[in-house]
């Protein structure tokens, strides 16, 4: 406590000292190759994944995922009857909803630009589900982001596919998703919140690792073709590894239930 020559043992007024008002220096120097990521990871290291299924008892299937500071919980209901107003369809329907809690971001209620995540999740998952196995009915997927620590959408997609597998919905394969950020000349995998805010471009891939098929690819920002190739290669590799982690999580839950 650098009091300004005050003789009192502790300050009686709460007023910030001028020297503390400087903003912290920006942690990321984009052109300097030697900078270290804020959480100490290498450029091509993903965060360790914590995955659990069966988190929600009321749902047909559910999963909880924690990737560093990004925490997501997904519940799956279904197959259940479609709303009466909808037309007959001889294949099943998928209904996705992604919402942020009010405490998910540092500033309360700032998840306003994530409204399109629901349709993005829908497009990523519908290619992997065998819709013909539940005609006329609907499967509802509700994703809730409890804390947004960067790379939210990939975590939501992976967690949702784990919840669908837990619910016993027939799928062609699990869907895993990883994103890569382009910061100046560097490619950084699995970006955190601060890295995402100053990125030049991002690439998100959702793929089915065992069948080697991509269900969705989203590229934003400035990219050159060789960089895109490199980023896709990184992502596909990480997706395959994440797929193995997800499979072992499913098998563990399934064996412990018997």
């Amino acid at each position, binding site marked *: 406590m650098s009091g300004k020559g005050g003789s009192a043992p502790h300050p009686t007024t709460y007023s910030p000292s001028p020297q503390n008002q400087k903003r912290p220096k920006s942690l990321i120097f984009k052109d300097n190759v030697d900078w270290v990521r804020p959480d100490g990871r290498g450029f091509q290291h993903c965060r360790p994944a914590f995955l659990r299924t069966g988190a929600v008892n009321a749902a*047909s*299937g559910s999963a909880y995922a924690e990737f560093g500071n990004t925490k997501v919980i997904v519940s799956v*209901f*279904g*197959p*259940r*009857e*479609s709303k*009466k107003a*909808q*037309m*007959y369809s*001889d294949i099943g329907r998928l209904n996705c909803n992604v919402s942020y809690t009010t405490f998910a971001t540092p500033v309360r209620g700032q998840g306003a630009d994530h409204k399109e995540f629901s349709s993005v999740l829908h497009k990523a998952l519908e290619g992997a589900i*065998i819709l013909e*196995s*539940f*005609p*006329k*009915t609907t499967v509802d997927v509700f994703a809730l982001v409890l804390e947004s620590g960067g790379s939210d959408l990939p975590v939501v997609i992976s967690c949702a596919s784990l919840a669908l*597998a*837990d*619910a*016993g919905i*027939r*799928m*062609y*394969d*699990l869907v895993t998703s990883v994103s890569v950020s382009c910061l100046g000349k560097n490619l950084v995998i699995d970006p955190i919140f601060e890295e995402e805010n100053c990125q030049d471009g991002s690439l998100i891939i959702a793929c*089915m*690792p*065992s*069948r080697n098929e991509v269900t969705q690819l989203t590229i934003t920002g400035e990219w050159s073709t060789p960089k895109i190739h490199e980023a896709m290669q990184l992502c596909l590799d990480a997706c395959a590894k994440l*797929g193995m982690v*997800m*499979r072992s999580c*499913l*098998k563990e839950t*399934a*064996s412990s*239930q*018997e």
Partner: protein
Amino acid sequence: MGMVEREEEEEEMVTPGEVLGKATELKAGRGAYVAPHNKTVYASLTGRRSLIPPPSDSSDQRPTVEVTGHKAHGAVPVPGSTVIVRVTRVMAKMASADIICVGTKAVKEKFSGIIRQQDVRATEIDKVDMHASFRPGDIVRALVLSLGDARAYYLSTAQNELGVVSAESAAGATMVPISWTEMQCPLSGQIEQRKVAKVGGQ
């Protein structure tokens, strides 16, 4: 690989997308599917993998591989399955019912079904009186005929074992079946008309 004749099943946990074998050696049963482009059998559910030997008289001697889900997750009505329904409304030409069980499993959320006049019984189908066959609140065993339309599954009770299984009389007691068209209330002795299911081996 030469499959030695084994009676016991291979117990192995699989997850969706795992390779179960080649399509030339295995047939895909429940919980598995064949990918056409590389002729491989993959799993589509999480569960235990089991092999079913082929019937000895069929020409195709490939065993069938099945994945049985570990979870008793909710069932969905499938054409040809027997369901238990509760009648909600009875009208002149049809009765609406909520499907509450499929086979032996209860559903998590009800599905809607209807029993049309021509599907109540097998004989004299145009002379059926719906109010003499079902009343609201009856528990009925029925067969799913088809997926129906957008609103409801089509159900049928046109067999001896199908029909009202349990009903409450006007007095509030569970009625006793006395024939295939009548049930009697034990409290008041009143006889009410229903399309009764033949339960047991009588």
